[in-house]
């Protein structure tokens, strides 16, 4: 069985049936573009969530009447918590200095007492930067004596996580449909090509050709459809990516690992699509 010869045959067949082939490639490309667009969106959302979580801190504000003993107990408690990576105590005086530095000394002039509470700033270990873990930690801290308020950007984090999860769900749903569609598009195109080549297939079979010899050009054709469909969809995605990057904000393109996984998946599905149509030829 000559792989090179069958590849040459496949390319010649494609050239002969340019319109059928081009239509199939464009259909695959546009179907994949929808999926790739969602992948790009998810990838970028993931980056935003990661960046947000990298700068993530919890602020614990103490009651004005907090006693040094209570503060020391709270610090000891915080140091034993698995979620806490680092902590820093900001005294009332330090808070005032920071505020004066930021807004100017005039703002708080005339006040008899320092109104700012003492606070702890916690850095959270990366694996605990999820809403459920943070809510649990916040509740445990709130229950401690001397604590007035715990802030950790709950709403922003919840919103980002929910957006990310929705995008993943939509991508999975669309992705499932699109991947099934690719199998069907390739199966249909190969069926069309087999019909166009039925006399050749019949002649080869009558001369005693093994299934492999008859089937191999169509296997190549299935893979070529998948390859060029993916390539075209990536080119289109790159165009869209550049457009958004220039007009809106800074985005990152899909990394090559994701591209290779996608290409591998599409090639596999194209092969499945091709083989579905080739079953009859192989048995003939």
């Amino acid at each position, binding site marked *: *069985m*000559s792989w090179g*010869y069958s590849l040459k045959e496949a390319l*010649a067949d494609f050239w*002969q049936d340019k319109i059928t082939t081009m239509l199939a490639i464009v259909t695959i490309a546009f179907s994949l573009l929808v999926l790739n667009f969602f992948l790009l969106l998810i990838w970028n959302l993931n980056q935003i969530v990661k960046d947000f979580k990298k700068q993530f801190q919890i602020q614990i504000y103490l009651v004005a009447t907090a006693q040094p003993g209570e503060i020391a107990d709270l610090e000891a408690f915080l140091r034993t918590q698995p979620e806490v990576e680092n902590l820093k105590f900001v005294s009332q005086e330090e808070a005032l200095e920071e505020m004066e530095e930021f807004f100017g000394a005039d703002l708080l002039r005339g006040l008899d007492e320092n109104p700012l509470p003492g606070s702890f700033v916690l850095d959270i270990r990366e694996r605990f930067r999820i809403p459920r873990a943070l809510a649990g930690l916040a509740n445990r801290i709130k229950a401690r004596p001397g604590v007035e308020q715990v802030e950790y950007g709950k709403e922003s984090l919840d919103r980002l996580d929910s957006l990310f999860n929705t995008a993943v769900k939509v991508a999975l749903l669309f992705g499932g449909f699109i991947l099934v569609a690719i199998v069907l598009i390739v199966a249909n195109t190969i069926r069309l090509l087999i019909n166009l080549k039925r*006399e*050749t297939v*019949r*002649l*080869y*079979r*009558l*001369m*005693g*050709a*093994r299934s492999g*010899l008859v089937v191999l050009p169509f296997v190549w054709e299935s893979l070529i459809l998948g390859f060029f469909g993916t390539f075209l969809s990536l080119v289109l995605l790159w165009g869209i990516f550049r457009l958004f990057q220039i007009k809106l904000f800074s985005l990152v393109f899909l990394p090559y690992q994701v591209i290779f996984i996608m290409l591998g998946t599409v090639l596999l599905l194209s092969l499945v699509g091709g083989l579905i149509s080739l079953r009859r030829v192989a048995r003939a």
Partner: protein
Amino acid sequence: MLELRNVGKVYPGDMMALFNVSLVLNPGELVTIYGPTGAGKTTLIRLISAEDVPTDGEILFDGLSSLRLKGKRLLQWRQNIGTVYQDLRLLKDKTVATNVAVPLRVQAKTKKEIENLTLEMLSFLRMEARKDSYPDELSAGEKQKVALARALVSQPRLILADEPTANLDTPTTQEILSLIRGLNHLGNTILLTTNRKEVADFLSFGKTCQLNLGRLA
């Protein structure tokens, strides 16, 4: 080499194409099956070339039986027969050389062997100048020669020719028949069908059988 034992073929709708046909073809022999259109000649060729299966009887070829013929034995059977089809079945999108080379590709010959054997065969039939032409650019006689070259190129054990002179003018018919006669003299075993009396007469040095309404006389 080839033996048909009480072979029958009934198509769906109870249309009987062949009835109780028995025939023996020895190596180096030429047998002409002569009969009118619709006599069952093409059906006979289709059964011998394993394009179709008999509904009755058995065909024996080179130690193989047509009963339960499948897999490797079916491929072996088909590879050992070179057929010139009545409708020629040339691949229109392929050159003459590529058409002729089909059986060699099927038998997985090397690129060099394919090139050499194809050119040898085309040169034997004086068609080497047309090797890069496409079937639609050829005359009826040239197309017939290409079909003949394709049937011969792999040196099959048996050559079947289904009305190889149909639609040819007299000089071309003479040329094709002379070629077939020459091939037989070179030791090739040939079974040929025709509905033309002059063809049967020309090849009368071999065995001639008459086929009428599916029955062999």
